[in-house]
């Protein structure tokens, strides 16, 4: 089965990646399966300094989905480079660090720090985290700001730069085009959509952060639509994410134009979810006599 896909100059063994924040630093999955089998691993969002994250409750299940407000708890880029990256390299993983910062300067510092390392396939710039007070969404809903971050990170690193887009930009295609022009090699779409849930007995928000990001199968139709729109607007590859839990879900994103996909919340319900998706795509391609890349953008519109 030819499952290889290209994201710009980067060749991935297959189109199945894992989404940032839903796969830890990758090493947590070592005992479940051989993580080098994945097309790539987007790490938990990394910041310059470690962050403890938001107070609990941080998550809440909703109809066919979940709200989260983790608040980018992470060990910081330094600990990542020291404690996680060497092991990831050993395991042969394709690593895509996901970057979060609240200023352009910090994004640059992050990118520069990672640039000193080997074994990184690309960096994914998160301009779309809904659960932090500074940065995050502010960059992601404004084409000019998003382009600014993108250009700065591109300059600070030799690695390909992917930008993770927010579904909350009024016109996501404007942000997409701005990032393309600023030098992004690929776009990941979508991050979570902000939601709110209230306990009708206590009258309190169900998350301490009040709002949280909605993910899971509930948002899949919205994510597919946005990926489709973005693919029509840009020429760089788009990586689809949002509600993928089966090979069919992934194939839907690829038909809509995605060159690869990321499995997110589905990892929570089953640590083998990404492998199930990968094996399903492989079986599908086998049955249809197709290479994975033959699916990209092949939705029939007439």
């Amino acid at each position, binding site marked *: 089965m030819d499952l290889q896909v290209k994201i710009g100059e980067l060749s991935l063994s297959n189109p199945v990646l894992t989404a940032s924040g839903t796969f830890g630093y990758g090493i947590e999955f070592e005992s479940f399966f051989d993580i080098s089998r994945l097309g790539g691993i987007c790490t938990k969002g990394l910041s310059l300094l470690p962050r403890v994250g938001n107070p*609990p409750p941080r*998550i809440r*299940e909703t109809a066919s*989905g*979940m709200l989260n407000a983790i608040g980018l708890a992470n060990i910081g880029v330094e600990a990542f480079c020291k404690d996680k990256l060497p092991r990831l390299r050993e395991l042969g993983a394709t690593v895509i660090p996901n970057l979060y910062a609240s200023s352009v300067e910090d994004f640059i510092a992050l990118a520069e720090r990672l640039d000193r390392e080997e074994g990184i396939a690309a960096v994914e710039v998160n301009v779309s985290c809904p659960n932090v007070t500074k940065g995050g969404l502010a960059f992601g809903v404004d084409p000019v700001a998003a382009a600014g971050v993108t250009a700065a990170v591109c300059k600070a690193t030799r690695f390909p730069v992917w930008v993770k887009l927010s579904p909350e930009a009024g016109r996501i295609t404007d942000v997409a085009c701005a990032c393309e022009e600023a030098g992004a090699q690929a776009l990941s779409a979508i991050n979570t959509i902000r939601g709110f849930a209230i306990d009708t007995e206590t009258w309190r928000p169900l998350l301490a952060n009040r709002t949280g990001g909605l993910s899971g*199968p509930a948002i899949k139709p919205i994510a597919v639509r946005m990926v489709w729109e973005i693919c029509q607007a840009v020429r760089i590859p788009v990586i689809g994410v949002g509600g993928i839990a089966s090979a069919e879900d992934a194939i839907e994103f690829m038909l809509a134009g995605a060159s690869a996909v990321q499995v997110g*919340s589905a990892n*929570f*319900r089953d640590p083998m979810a990404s492998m199930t998706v990968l094996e399903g795509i492989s079986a599908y391609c086998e049955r249809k006599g197709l290479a994975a890349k033959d699916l990209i953008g092949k939705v029939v519109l007439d």
Partner: protein
Amino acid sequence: MEQYDRRPARQVTVPLVRRDSIGASHHVLTFEYDTPLEAQAGQFVMVRGTNWGQSPFLPRPMSLLHGGKRPSILVKVVGEGTRRLANAEPGDLFSVLAPLGRPWSPCSSHRVPILVAGGVGVCPLLFLARTLKQQGIRPVALYGGRSSGDLVLYEELQAESDLRLATEDGSAGVKGKVTALLDEALMEADGRATVYTCGPRAMMASVVAAARKANVPCEVSLETVMACGYGVCLGCAVPRFDGGYVYACSEGACIDGRVIDWKK
């Protein structure tokens, strides 16, 4: 952090082979494994029906009553997920991820284990009592609830321990809170106890405070909302005494009670 010998969790699809319903709201579910589940007391599973479709989306964390070829859990119905578990029939298939979490620490041989259970918090303690029995140790167990109906599985616990009951309405054991029994048990142990507790947060907080006063070790089993159960969602944060957080699924469920900020 991890001084215990943790077996890697396995994700399996296994059939339910028994459902023992204790009243309408409590159900013991027993699954059948091909190769035995090697679990330690205090560990838990993430469980989800293969026929749940798209909603409920996530699996549910449940303490193990024991491992082996036929591991079981006790489910109390509180919402949609537990309702589905309770309605399952033998033959229904479940995805089970286990064993998860940090188990109870061993009790040093010159100490008396005191187990303090509230409601379904009894589960990891019953597993502990069974393990202690195999080691030839008979723990003291204190078990409390609102009324006698809340004291599910108390006979099973009694078989493994010197059991004392407390109910708020006096329908079983002494009238009052289980923490009242604890002072007495701690006195009896005369400074040579190790306390293990699982139950409502307020109860655990009092237990930790009492143990601290008596200057004996005290482990608690944390209950929080969980998405993954194996350390990657970071959803199960519990405030720590020093302003940070512990992750209940990976640094717990069983953890030194003094690590937790009980005022939050």
